[in-house]
């Protein structure tokens, strides 16, 4: 951020002025202020600023140094997502944004830091009043429920549940895989309040012919075609009956953020985030594997055998992703810090393992030659991520990488290298950060 390369396409007015307002004055307008930090020294920059504004500035003598003219400030085109903070925006139509790892440090991810993965354009009206959920298809008693009905007729529960995008980590694929280039932060663990999906399905009476769920929401396709559904995925009925799936109407004790699916969404933790449909309106129980948009072809699918990086895989050899693999993230310290040699460094973060539990967490500061066992907490409830921490002493000043490796209850560990697949899914290779010990 402080490389000072001037006003380049990705370095907007705001950023320049935030870094060094007076320098920004000079860079953008050639402006230099007087000793009282007001006005334009010998008129330097006044004509330029006037030309950009399309007007002279009558009170230019009073104009503070480092001041973005409001007329230009209004034109700033940087990404702003109301109610979100610190996210890295990958794409603005549809909106996709991830959380830098050091902003995932909280045990429960705050709403403003929860990542956004959209396939379509969110609905404009997310008023809970008048919102209905339909459950139909292979059921004895199709249901049509308001959010008030859900709260009144079913047990309301609050659970800490982690969600991760199936493509988290895609940015590191080589050769690159197409799609949003997520790095580490398409993951979060919020407190979700709602009713159990299982309770709803039991109230509707799932028929023996039921095979798969099919989820539909109120978002619209990016093409603008009102008849086109941007995404409709589902899960096998056995997974749908897991008691930790929620139809949620609250997030972290408050409203769900509009970009995270307000006013009603599915939370089907441990599986690719796309199973947890946002702006939920209908759950159709099907007598076959669902074939909605992003269920078929190669979407959210991986080859059923290991492949070489770059290998072409026939479509029929792809299988639908079920549970996400064991994974962890280092949330403190932030990568790139300097640390005094004589002080102990606490390293911490979270770990999760899809449908499984994390049973062991190890840290390496010597590129994987030796490992230090970290303290690992049990989850608040199944499908919550687990917190871990380790205290590190460094033997000598120098450059270190801290690597983190989680192991699940079936003994599976995070790999060193990406298990490459054509669509860039399931990258659970170890997170590593840099620390310079001085």
């Amino acid at each position, binding site marked *: 951020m402080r490389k000072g390369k001037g006003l380049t396409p990705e370095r907007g007015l705001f950023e320049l002025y935030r870094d060094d307002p007076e320098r920004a004055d000079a860079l953008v307008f050639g402006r230099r202020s007087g000793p009282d930090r007001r006005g334009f020294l010998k008129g330097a920059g006044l004509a330029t600023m006037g030309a950009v504004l399309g007007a002279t500035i009558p009170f230019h003598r009073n104009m503070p140094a480092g001041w973005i003219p409001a007329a230009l400030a209004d034109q700033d085109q940087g990404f702003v997502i109301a109610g979100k903070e610190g996210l890295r925006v990958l794409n603005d139509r549809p909106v996709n944004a991830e959380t830098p790892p050091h902003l995932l440090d909280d045990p429960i991810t705050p709403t403003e830091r929860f990542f956004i993965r959209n396939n379509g354009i969110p609905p404009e009206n997310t008023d809970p009043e008048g919102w209905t959920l339909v459950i139909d298809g292979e059921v004895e008693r199709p249901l049509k429920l308001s959010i008030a009905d859900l709260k009144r007729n079913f047990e309301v529960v609050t659970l800490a549940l982690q969600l991760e995008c199936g493509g988290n980590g895609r940015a590191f694929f080589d050769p*690159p895989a197409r799609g949003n280039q997520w790095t580490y932060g398409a993951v979060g663990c919020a407190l979700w309040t709602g009713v159990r999906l299982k309770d709803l399905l039991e109230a509707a009476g799932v028929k023996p012919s039921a095979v798969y769920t099919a989820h539909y929401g109120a978002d619209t396709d990016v093409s603008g075609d009102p008849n*086109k559904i941007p995404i409709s995925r589902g899960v096998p009925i056995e997974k749908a009956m897991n008691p930790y799936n929620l139809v949620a109407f609250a997030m972290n004790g408050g409203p769900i953020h509009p970009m995270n699916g307000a006013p009603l969404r599915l939370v089907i933790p441990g599986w690719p985030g796309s199973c947890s449909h946002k702006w939920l309106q209908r759950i159709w129980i099907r007598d076959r594997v669902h074939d909605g948009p992003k269920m078929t072809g190669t979407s959210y699918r991986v080859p059923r055998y290991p492949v070489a990086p770059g290998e072409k895989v026939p479509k029929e050899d792809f299988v639908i992703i079920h549970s996400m693999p064991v994974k962890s993230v280092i949330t403190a310290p932030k990568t790139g810090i300097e640390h005094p040699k004589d002080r102990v460094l606490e390293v911490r973060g979270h770990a999760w393992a899809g449908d499984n539990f994390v049973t062991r967490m190890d840290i390496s500061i010597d590129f994987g030659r030796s490992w230090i066992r970290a303290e690992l907490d049990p989850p608040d409830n199944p499908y919550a991520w687990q917190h871990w921490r380790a205290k590190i002493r460094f033997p000598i000043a120098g450059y270190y990488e801290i690597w983190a490796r989680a192991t699940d209850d079936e003994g599976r560990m995070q790999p060193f290298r990406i298990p490459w697949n054509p669509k860039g899914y399931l990258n659970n290779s170890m997170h590593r950060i840099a620390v310079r010990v001085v």
Partner: protein
Amino acid sequence: MRERLGAVILAAALWGGGPVSAIEPDELPEGPGRELTFYTCAACHSFNLVAQQRQDRAGWADTIAWMVEEQGMSEPEPEELELILDYLASAFGVRARTPPTLPQRPLLVEDLPEEPGRDLTFYTCAACHSFNLVAQQGQDRAGWADTIDWMVEEQGMSEPEPDELELLLDYLSRWFGPDRRFLTTLSEPEQAASSRP
């Protein structure tokens, strides 16, 4: 071209000390300075040594400075040096950083390199989704052809005319290929995410 070059190097590696055919200048990637670079390097050593390297421009400048100072290479004229460095950095440079650093504002058509196909590419893609989605990708020509096929078949994209498709694929693979060249034309952006240690 790269494939053939790769094959030559691979053959050299497999055959060990056996007879191998040296790289000829017309086998190298095209570009200004190709012949100058070839003959400057091959004056003293096989070009096969050069073709194995991956250095950015600063790395190549260091290498040449070292050869001049310690290896008895005669110093190139300044304008020749520029041309050689441009060619080496482009043909034997490092791949774009992984993961890509991304602009934190919507990309506009003027942000893209002004070459045939620019406006067609921008407006074809941005009709449905943000161009920022395109700018992150690193697909070769075949990958882009697949991507467009998929969008036409499954995402409701209207099929481009054959001549438009060629222009689109040329532009996309040139600037949004595996080296993510377009992103390297932008200077270090503000990036909330720490991209790597």
